[in-house]
């Protein structure tokens, strides 16, 4: 095993950053598959950022907490169904598993949707009425992010008798165990890989159809492209904004379930924060405001981050993601597919 020293000046005599490209070569397919799984989750969260940005030119900084709320929402639903942590649902057969997954996903979507829409109502709408500058929106979003996190951290455990929230991650409820279906090179494609990647593709696909082919979607695109004329065409801007937050919330809720399938130990009050920033990076990478860009950006970010992880080590994963964000913003701030909601079609 060869560890190369990146720099070997007199002051940097030790290995400061060691990397091992051969390691990626050995695990190329596995790392790519892992990356795609992450990418699927990033993509779904990124859609929320992208839609809101497209319509409002606002970075909804609190979207990561919308995602976090979704995790707790689906967890609470499973608890309400009588699941015990560390129990397994698939013992009751695939049909029930799918049913439970469906219920969990719906619950996650519902909670995230409600959180996203109330966020819009409580925090952002009053600012819009006052024509506040963008900075004020961002600071409000940060405040909302604090409030949602700390609510789950401190208040929720008291409300639920310690069963939800608090300082520790929730005890995992595993609905699906990872089982290898077939292998590609060195990588194994598991049932979870399929669930994650296909769900992301299907859900972003549906969103794409809703936005590009339905009447409501036209409303959203109209507001994004020209709010004044959209109003003149009878589009209620407020309703469109609410709908946008709702769609973003629903997808974040779906992402929350997928995330907990992948990382059952991830349900914790601050579990959305870093993921949210990365999902935002994904949105920017693909071209913020562009739905397909969010999917593309999510997958690229997930894969790049995982490759980097195999080369530099587990502890460099976040650095790679943030460095990618900074680089993209510096050199191509409009992203791979360009900005502007709905323009990808045209």
């Amino acid at each position: 095993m060869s560890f190369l020293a990146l720099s070997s000046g007199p002051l940097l005599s030790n290995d400061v950053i060691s990397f091992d490209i051969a390691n990626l070569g050995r695990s190329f397919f596995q790392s790519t598959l892992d990356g795609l799984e992450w990418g699927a989750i990033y993509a779904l969260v990124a859609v929320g950022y992208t839609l809101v940005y497209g319509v409002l030119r606002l970075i909804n900084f609190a979207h990561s907490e919308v995602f976090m709320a979704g995790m707790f929402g689906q967890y609470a639903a499973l608890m309400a169904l009588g699941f015990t942590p560390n129990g397994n649902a698939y013992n009751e057969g695939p049909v029930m598993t799918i049913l439970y997954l469906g219920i969990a996903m719906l619950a996650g979507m519902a909670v995230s949707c409600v959180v996203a829409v109330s966020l819009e109502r409580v925090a952002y709408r009053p600012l819009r009425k006052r024509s506040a500058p963008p900075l004020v929106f961002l600071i409000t979003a940060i405040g909302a992010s604090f409030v949602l996190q700390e609510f789950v951290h401190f208040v929720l455990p008291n409300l639920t008798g310690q069963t939800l929230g608090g300082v520790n991650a929730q005890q995992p409820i595993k609905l699906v165990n990872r089982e290898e279906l077939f292998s590609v090179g060195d990588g194994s494609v598991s049932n979870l890989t399929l669930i994650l990647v296909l769900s992301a593709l299907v859900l972003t696909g549906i969103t794409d159809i809703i936005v590009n082919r339905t009447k409501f979607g036209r409303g959203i695109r109209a507001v994004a492209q020209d709010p004044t004329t959209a109003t003149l065409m009878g589009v209620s801007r407020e309703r469109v904004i609410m709908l946008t937050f709702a769609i973003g919330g629903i997808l974040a809720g779906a992402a929350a379930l997928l995330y907990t399938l992948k990382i059952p130990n991830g349900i914790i009050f601050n579990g959305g924060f870093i993921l949210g920033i990365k999902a935002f990076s994904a949105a920017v990478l693909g071209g913020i405001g562009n739905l397909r860009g969010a999917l593309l950006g999510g997958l690229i970010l997930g894969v790049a981050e995982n490759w980097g992880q195999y080369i530099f080590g587990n502890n460099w994963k976040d650095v790679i993601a943030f460095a990618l964000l900074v680089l993209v913003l510096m050199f191509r701030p409009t992203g791979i597919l360009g900005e502007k909601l709905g323009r990808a079609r045209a």
Partner: protein
Amino acid sequence: MSTPAAASGKPQARADQPKPAGGKEKIAIGDRFRLWWNSLSRPTQWAVGVPFIILLALLPVVRPPGISTVGTDFGGVMAQFGMIALIAIGLNVVVGQTGLLDLGYVGFYAVGAYTVGLLTSPDSPWNQTGDGGWLSAKWAWLAVLPIAVAITAISGLILGTPTLRLRGDYLAIVTLGFGEIVRLLADNLDTLTRGGQGLSQVAYPRLGESDTAMNGVFAAGYSNGGNINNGVWWFWLSLLLIVLVLLGVGNLERSRVGRSWVAIREDEDAAEIMGVPTFRFKLWAFVIGAGIGGLSGALYAGQVQFVVPTNFNVINSMLFLCAVVLGGQGNKLGVILGAFIVVYLPNYFLGRTEFLWWNINGNAIADYKYLFFGLALIVLMIFRPQGLIPVRQKLMTYGRQIWLAARGKRTKFDDNPAGSDKPGSTAAAEVSR
């Protein structure tokens, strides 16, 4: 992008024009304070300000029972306040004056602290205080202080040069990424920084060494037996630095630099068209802000004598931003008040069992601080986005004289016929060469 047709949408654009500030608006206490302060003359301001600073400096010595903290040492709290106040002043230059939202400011704080740590901690491979180093143990901290500020300022330059061309909200996210990268580097480059083990025994100013204070008054263990301990000394040191930084920043503010910053904040395009080299001044703001952050980081490293990456996480960045927004973006005094609230309030409740006539669980209140800060931010942004003490910069070096000329001094000037050069009219003489 903007076709000629679109650009001629004149009527909409004019909707931006505000209504006249007509009618009786309610004046909040912060506004009252500002109006009162502005109404004082410069000497009066000094006459009020200096005793106030002295009072503030004496606060941790006197430790009035209702004000002093219970669960933690008041001197230490005030020392932390001093550092956060410095940070708030630095961040205010970037966010408040120039209008660039920086969410990764903690990165500069970390760079400052790590510069001191790396150069003076025996744990670091770059330690210069031991054998063969070029720093004497006694003066190490003071010698490294300017280096820390300079390196932090350079890091601001490095970050700012490529990113300051970005629009506001993008800039916010890039800086957030930068802040995280700095922390992660401090964590991952463990051959240099020892990662999570941190750098200990960082140098501090060895001043006032005596029999009772073997390592000087800034040493971690110093206490004179009474209320004056090392925390108080660090508070005084930061107070001194705050005053110096305030004078410097004030000088900048009351010059073309400050005018350019505010102009950029108000309308960047118009500013550029009026001849302001916007990019250069944004970069200056970034570099100056970074330098002040580094100064505060160096203070932190000296006081705690121990730096680890966990102290520099994003949530601290948000807390710094809270201080600035809470106090009043753009207002130097305001953001210092904001820093005080952010540091003092949680500590005030810590260990307290009663507040006025209620029985409370102070620790729980302290625990919930981020919840309260979050709520405060939302409410403030909706109802009072300008902060507790809103901004009204003085952007002219001799603007004060205009102000004086405007109010109450007219009788005096009436004695001097226009055009006369009698020495009586100092203000006029000074302004008109």
